């Protein structure tokens, strides 16, 4: 072991303070609402800046929002900064898309998942002052106009969805938070001023860069002014405060907000506050999710050390817990369809601890453990917490992580340095940058502060491709010939014919998906550049280019394949039963699938029980699943994006496996029409009957290095399997074996089925129950019933 810092596990044993409990209780009692402030302010700003360069218009809009929105400081708070006029509320971002908001306005409070209250006043403001201006001007409408009709049709048939960035901001970023802490925004303004000298105003193209640099200066100054508004508010409250202790706290808040993020932080608390302002404003500016702090234990450590003599570990833990509660206060409203794919108010803000540093040495420190303790203390769904594992991960960190896993919160997620560092090297990162990776959103690796990864570029419906292959490219649900005519199944005489047709359909639809992504990408560059965020990612200032136009050092687009197990098992059943054993012909099988197994339950049982299934360490099924995934990955690898970067495949679903399943008819794996697909690279729920070691062996057969946008394996354990000291080692041993064999990511749910059933029946009694939903954690009771059912049906590993 090469532990650089000897960490005493006692640093991370402090429970939540009374202050933390009080703020948490207030949070749980609050139902999210829609706030119209941002939408109203940006609409006014856009009207004021018509005709000016887009980058300047974007900066002026941010300035208008930050200076005009409500700011408040809640009782007991030490870390301040709010996103909306009310706690837990979500703003509207009309410049990205607002047709759906208008259409769904009256349903937001009535829908089945992720409910948002909305007042009549807010509705009136949006209908009168916001929506009319944006008709025909949103990024979504502009992107649509760029797309081929075939691509739009395939999207409507849900062969894939590019919905995330099509309707929203990109997010999926990690800014250079460490630089803000150590240098301050004034330094960034100075950098932009200096960069201006490099560009020639007489050159029309370079003039665009000068506009961009000007926009970053406007934006950064606005953020400093925003922080000062909190200082003003703290002073106002302090003047009226009777309690001497609270008065002193408020004055300290005021002092800190006058200093950071403009100037360098000098203490731990200043660093945390500087971080929060920057993280908050990125959210307000960008309308994305998965804005990820990443390696907080690394870039914040110098400030922890600097304050060690003047601050107790209890105080440090409390500040981190308060930051955790702040993360939970951020929110985002999505359209009803997207809510199905991203259920549970998730923001996917990923913090990762441990791993190696830029020199390859173990990076564990006190903060690594304390951040794990935050999850135990708050027991809330945000932020997403991850841990990097390498050969030298010290026991103290591994055991702490496993103890938190055992609590059943679904965190941390485990990531394998041994697979991910080489995967990133193969995508052109330097060795130092690859070692410095963190995770965006669910499972997407990148180096923070240097990358525009577009990690959630699309979800691709692999099971739909099997259905289209069996139907010669015709989609029954939309009654359209959306695919290629790859041959009638009556003419397919061997399994190779079937695979060849599947590969051709895959090639066609991956091409349409990448085209769609690139059109959305272009639209973002032209319409919604993000000056503040761009100024915090290398080398946007140096290149005089926004992040959206290719200013980052590393650029990628990462679309995800969903339903590996279904595609694999469907093809396996065809090979085994139609061609090897010839117990049913392909046309007979198709006829039964067309009728959704009506009157043929015994055949469905045959498909389920007599064909080998992925996830049981059976090479027959695993090889076909691997090949069906490889075909997808090879196709994705062929494409490049307009920012000068490469496409890279991932295999994870968020919760898209549920809505994707809803549009796929009966499949040869015995799956009934409309039911969910398998999540991530996990086996089909209930098909993994050989225990977790077999599952892990199967999943490790996939090529986790080529899928450099991430793969996701969910494992659910009964509390029995993980009890006691031995139980902790059981989890570590499963993780280690998977990782030694090339696994990428694994996460554990430790809860029993009965708990979930009870929670479904009496949601009121289980408001605090957090479960892992494929890459992030959410309140179970906030999920749609179909997703709750899906989680319940995943095989429980009981021993």
């Amino acid at each position: 072991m090469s532990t650089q810092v000897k960490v005493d596990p006692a640093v991370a044993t402090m429970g939540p303070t009374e202050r933390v409990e009080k703020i948490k209780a207030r949070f749980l009692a609050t139902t999210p609402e829609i706030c119209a402030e941002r939408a109203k302010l940006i609409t006014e700003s856009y009207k004021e800046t018509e005709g000016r360069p887009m980058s300047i218009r974007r900066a002026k809009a941010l300035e208008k929002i930050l200076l005009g929105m409500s700011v408040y400081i809640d009782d007991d708070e030490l870390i301040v900064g709010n996103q909306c006029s009310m706690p837990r509320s979500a703003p509207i971002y009309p410049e990205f898309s607002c047709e759906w908001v208008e259409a769904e306005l009256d349903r937001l409070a009535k829908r089945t998942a992720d409910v948002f209250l909305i007042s009549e006043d807010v509705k009136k403001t949006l209908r009168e002052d916001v929506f009319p201006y944006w008709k025909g001007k949103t990024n979504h409408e502009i992107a649509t106009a760029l797309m081929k009709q075939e691509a739009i049709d395939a999207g409507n048939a849900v062969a894939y969805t590019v919905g995330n960035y099509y309707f929203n901001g990109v997010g999926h970023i990690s800014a250079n938070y460490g630089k803000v802490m150590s240098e301050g925004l004034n330094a960034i303004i100075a950098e932009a001023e200096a960069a201006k000298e490099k560009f020639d105003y007489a050159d029309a193209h370079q003039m665009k860069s000068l506009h961009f640099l000007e926009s970053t200066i406007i934006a950064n100054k606005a953020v400093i002014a925003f922080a000062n508004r909190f200082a003003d508010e703290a002073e106002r409250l302090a003047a009226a405060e009777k309690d001497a202790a609270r008065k002193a706290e408020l004055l300290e808040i005021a002092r800190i907000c006058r200093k950071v993020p403009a100037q360098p932080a000098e203490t731990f608390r200043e660093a945390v506050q500087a971080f929060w302002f920057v993280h908050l404003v990125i959210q307000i500016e960008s309308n994305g999710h998965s804005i990820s702090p990443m390696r907080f234990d690394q870039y914040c450590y110098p400030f922890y050390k600097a304050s060690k003599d003047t601050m107790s570990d209890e105080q440090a833990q409390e500040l981190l817990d308060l930051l955790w509660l702040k993360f939970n206060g951020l929110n985002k409203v999505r359209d009803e369809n997207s809510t199905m794919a991203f259920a549970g108010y998730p923001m996917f803000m990923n913090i990762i601890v441990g791993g190696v540093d830029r020199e390859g040495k173990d990076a564990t420190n006190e903060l690594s453990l304390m951040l794990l303790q935050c999850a135990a203390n708050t027991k809330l769904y945000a932020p997403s917490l991850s841990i990097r594992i390498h050969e030298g991960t010290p026991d103290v960190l591994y055991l702490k992580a496993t103890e938190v896993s055992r609590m059943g919160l679904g965190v941390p997620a485990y990531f394998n340095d041994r697979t991910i560092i080489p995967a990133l090297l193969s995508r052109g990162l330097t060795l130092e940058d690859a070692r410095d990776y963190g995770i965006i959103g669910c499972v997407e690796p990148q180096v923070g502060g240097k990358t525009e990864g577009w990690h959630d570029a699309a979800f691709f419906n692999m099971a739909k491709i099997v259905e289209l292959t069996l139907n010669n490219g015709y989609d029954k649900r939309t009654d359209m010939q959306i695919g290629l005519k790859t041959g009638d199944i009556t003419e397919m005489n061997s399994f190779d014919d079937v695979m060849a047709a599947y590969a051709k359909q895959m090639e066609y639809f991956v091409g349409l998906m990448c085209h769609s992504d690139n059109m959305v990408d272009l639209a973002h560059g032209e319409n919604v550049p993000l000056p503040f965020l761009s100024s915090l990612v290398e080398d946007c200032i140096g290149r005089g280019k926004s992040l959206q136009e290719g200013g980052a050092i590393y650029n990628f687009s990462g679309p995800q394949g969903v339903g590996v197990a279904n595609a694999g098992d469907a093809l396996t059943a065809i090979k085994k039963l139609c061609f090897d054993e010839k117990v049913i012909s392909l046309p007979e099988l198709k006829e039964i699938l067309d009728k959704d197994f009506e009157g043929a339950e015994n055949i469905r049982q045959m498909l389920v029980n007599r064909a080998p299934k992925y996830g049981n360490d059976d090479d027959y099924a695993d090889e076909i699943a691997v090949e069906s995934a490889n075909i997808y990955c090879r196709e994705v690898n062929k494409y490049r994006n307009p920012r000068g970067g490469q496409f890279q495949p991932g295999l994870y679903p968020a919760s898209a496996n549920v809505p994707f399943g809803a549009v796929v008819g009966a499949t040869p794996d015995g799956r009934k029409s409309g039911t969910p697909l398998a999540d991530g690279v996990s086996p089909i729920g209930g098909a993994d009957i050989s225990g977790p070691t077999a599952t892990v062996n199967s999943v490790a057969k996939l090529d986790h290095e080529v899928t450099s946008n991430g793969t996701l394996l969910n494992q659910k354990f009964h509390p029995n399997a993980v009890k006691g000291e031995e139980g902790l080692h059981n989890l570590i041993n499963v993780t280690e074996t998977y990782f030694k064999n090339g696994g990428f990511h694994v996460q554990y749910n430790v809860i029993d089925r009965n708990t979930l059933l009870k929670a479904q029946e009496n949601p009121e009694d289980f408001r605090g129950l957090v479960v892992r939903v494929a890459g992030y954690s959410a309140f179970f009771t906030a999920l749609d019933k179909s997703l709750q059912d899906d989680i319940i049906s995943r095989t429980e590993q009981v021993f």
Partner: protein
Amino acid sequence: MNWRQKVLDFDNICDRGEGLKGLIFDIQKFAIHDGGGIRTLVFLKGCPLLCPWCSNPESLAGKPEITFVCNNCIGCGKCLEVCPIDAISQDASNGKGLIIDRDRCTLCGQCAKHCYAGAINIIGRYLSVPELMEILERDRKFYEQSNGGVTFSGGEPTAQPEFLKAALKETQRRGIHTAIETSSFVNWETYASILEHVDLVLTDIKHMDDAEHKRLTGVSNKVILDNLRNISKLGIPVKIRLPLIPGFNDSTRNLEATADFVEQLSHVQSLDILPYHRLGEMKWGQLGQGYSLAGVEALTLEGTEARIQLFRDRGLKVSIGG
């Protein structure tokens, strides 16, 4: 070779074929309570004892057996159609389910083969040592990572001594830790030759009183207790397992006697208490047999703790659940 493939093969089930084969009724991976680390459990079929609480009644007979799981039946009627000797009939009494005439059944496997829903199964497959090794090797990386290995259980593994010996020897030769889970009801000579290839013994003590033991299990405990004394001399590590059955062996007197005996042994790693549960009840029905412990309540954790306090008082290392 894959255990799942093997159990889906219904042709010539009763034909042992050439060479040394063992009759196996299940193989479970990721066993974590049966001998340390992550293990694969191999269940050998056939047992000379007949304990009424047995939670694996399908393990008792030393030959393949047919089982019927009513809940899985989808009523397709295919089994009635394919049975060549009409040994299956519909259960007229409740309109759901089947009656299998097990005396006439030849275990030809036709019904199970066509029962896609998995309601009818034939339990027990003959495997050679190389076939078994292929399955065990699949999880080698887990054994190495966790200091785990392979545990041979039953049934009564020593009831197939030649196969067990060969399988243990080969497993050990491959550098995999071996354990057996046994009643120790086997003659010492045979037992000693098996133990040569065993790294850890998990063995039951069901009752200390010989008459009671005979009444409960059908066999004397004399050979069992003698064997345990002998193993103690060999120095092989042992875990003693005590199935705790309310009203059968949980009297203070018997538990005291058990403690007295265990205290005399050396190399005992722990005394594992296996509290009575009713999970086996359903399986007896699937075999078409009655359950003689019907009505006996499962033990609670508190009830178990109260009974075993006397072991703790004596300073014995006790665990619940094994």
